[in-house]
């Protein structure tokens, strides 16, 4: 089914920040996507800066989660999805036939809304992705596991019970375990789909602190419903509505001085 591009609502380019290609990790060009006959994304074009936290905000159903899943090619699982446009990771089209999807997903890790550790021990959860790759000695693997757990600020809490079930951890610990599991395979980009929405405030703060720390060596993309969270952790924020990119700016600018009335209405809670 050909996608219908709605020309009337084409984005106002002045409200959209751009980055030089060499400073950006992901580049999305003319991306449209539909589930069957339901249009989810409409002609999105934006770049995601490297080693920064970029937040996608917008009302429910605006397509921000869909956008995130495209970056990880998880929509491949759905036969009904029709996609147009391209996504470049470090200049390479992630949908091109040369790209192995498993390899792509190792480079672009993803953390989901509610913690989904596997029913294995803490150790095995973090080792899961490493074992898929194979070719690592046990010692090397254990080193990476420790590094990943430290990076996810979980090591001190679990170092004495790595063999315990991952499901015995609290929700916040589980989410950090999932992040550690993702970090262990060495991604360049980390996609976070409302990573703290199922957690209590203290766990949320820990996750947010973790996100700020991780950007020293990772590009992070965060989808969130919580605008305070976006304001707290992100460097740049994109506002999406009805599958379109409305405004994309440094977080400070977007929240204090939005260029468009639509954005202002949303962030001040005056949704039409």
């Amino acid at each position: 089914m050909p996608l219908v591009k709605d020309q009337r609502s084409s984005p106002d380019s002045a409200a959209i920040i751009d980055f030089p290609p060499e400073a950006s990790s992901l580049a999305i060009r003319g991306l449209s996507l539909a589930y069957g006959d339901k249009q989810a994304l409409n002609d999105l074009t934006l770049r995601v800066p490297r080693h920064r936290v970029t937040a996608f905000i917008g009302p429910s159903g605006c397509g921000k989660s869909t956008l995130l899943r495209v970056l990880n090619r998880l929509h491949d699982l759905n036969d009904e999805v029709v996609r147009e446009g391209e996504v470049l990771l470090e200049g390479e089209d992630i949908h091109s036939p040369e790209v192995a999807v498993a390899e792509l997903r190792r480079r672009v890790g993803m953390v989901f809304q509610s913690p989904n550790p596997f029913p294995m021990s803490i150790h095995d959860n973090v080792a899961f992705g490493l074992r898929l790759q194979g070719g690592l000695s046990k010692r090397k693997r254990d080193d990476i596991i420790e590094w990943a757990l430290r990076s996810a600020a979980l090591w001190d809490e679990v170092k004495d019970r790595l063999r315990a079930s991952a499901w015995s951890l609290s929700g916040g610990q589980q989410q950090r375990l999932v992040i550690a599991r993702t970090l262990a395979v060495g991604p360049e980009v980390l996609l976070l789909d409302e990573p703290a929405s199922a957690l209590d405030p203290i766990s949320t703060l820990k996750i947010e602190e973790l996100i700020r720390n991780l950007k020293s060596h990772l590009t992070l993309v965060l989808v969130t419903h919580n605008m305070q969270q976006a304001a707290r952790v992100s460097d740049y924020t994109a506002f999406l509505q009805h599958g379109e990119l409305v405004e994309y700016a440094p977080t400070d600018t977007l929240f204090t001085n939005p260029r468009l009335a639509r954005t202002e209405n949303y962030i001040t809670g005056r949704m039409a």
Partner: protein
Amino acid sequence: MREASTRRLRLPRGEGAGAWLCAGSVALSLLALLALLALLTVRGLGHFWPSPVELVVLEDGRQLAGERVREVPLAQGDGVERLYRTGNRDLDGDRWAWVRVSAIDAVSHPADLVVLERRRWGQAIGRLAAFEAASGERIEGEAAWTALESRLDELGALRDARDRLREEVILPLAARRGGEGSAESELTAAHGRLRELQAAMAGGRLILAAADGDSLSVPLEQVLGARRPNAMSTLDRLAAWGEGVWRFLSEGPRAANTAGGVWPAIFGTVLMVMLMSILVTPFGVLAAIYLNEVAHQGRLTRLVRIAVRNLAGVPSIVYGVFGLGVFVYGIGGRLDSWFFESALPSPTFGTGGLLWASLTLALLTLPVVIVATEEGLARIPDQQREGALALGATRLEMLTRVVLPMAAPAMLTGVILAVARAAGEVAPLMLVGVAKLAPQVPVDGDFPFLHLERKFMHLGYHIFDAAFHGGDVQAAMPLVYATALLLVLVILVLNLTAIFLRHHLSTRHGALTRR
């Protein structure tokens, strides 16, 4: 998540009739189950308890000796009729006697009444008049009982020695005969020893004086056991009861399935169920994986799913007919004409047997396994699958490393349900391979050790056969109860094994609390 499962909302007790109605249903179901188990246990296990033997003197002077079985009010007039098991079928033509209680003059329990368990004709009850050793020496009086007891012990030891010789020496030697001279001579020597043992066992008989004055001569090789129930202490009785239960479990049936044990039936049931599980599990699990994980979830898949669920409701005899037509006559007949032509016209696989019965029951339980596995797969959150994929797993890796381990308890649930259903099925088996009497179990020392083409005995069918097709239903009834109890126990053990396995799997990672 753990708290959520323990702090469930409950219907308040004491508010309205709803809670009482539900509790009453639970109580009624439990009572029915307990009554069933109690009946089976009391009737089945009570049979092996050596009950006292009464010597009854009637008004008209006749005497009879037997075990009291039960009392029934007379059809006409007052009074009660009492049933005695008197044995001695070869003398009286019947082993039961109905006696009007009002016609009884005296009842006593003489200590010297002997109950003989015989190979043919069932029990014999009477006084031991004399014991004749193989040498012809005749012993009478109380000494005869002592002599009989010690001779029976001897015979038991000799029988064991003979069986050991057969199994451990002669059979292995016969198996590797062919050419070797040493084996041949060893075999001859072993046969010589066997003949010695046989000779040592031969001869001897006892004379039993029945209560009504007739006397009975019983050769010793016919005697399976002798006891004096009235002279036994409680401990003796307990020992005799244990021996009775053990023999019931370990021996083959006698007297057209109305006496003896059920070992071949136990073995057949368990073996058949195990084969069935081995056959049904891979097919059921793979089919469920296809339906839930691979197939496009469209109208066709839904249709297939509904069809599978409905197959679970098809009466089992229909599967039996299918098994008979397709497996036995179709495939079996074809196999016979290809590989066993020399044996024709007597069929090898072209008749009912263990393999066809297991296959038929596997087919019968396939929907159960598919449905249970599919439900388990459907319960796994998509996030688990996506989590695996997001780490760079292929779909196959996702399936084998995350989805299947999580669904393993559900698969085992399916197998448990399948076992419970298959172990109790009798109807289809009657068409595809169960036998009234197959004392040879389908596993032995002959290549290929597991004889899939053999007919086998089954506890369920044994119950049916003993209850309705034995010559003496009265005698078979206690065995029917005992066999029914045993069938329940066998299914319980099979289920417990699977449940234990499932528990082990699901607690390995503390997964139990999550689902």
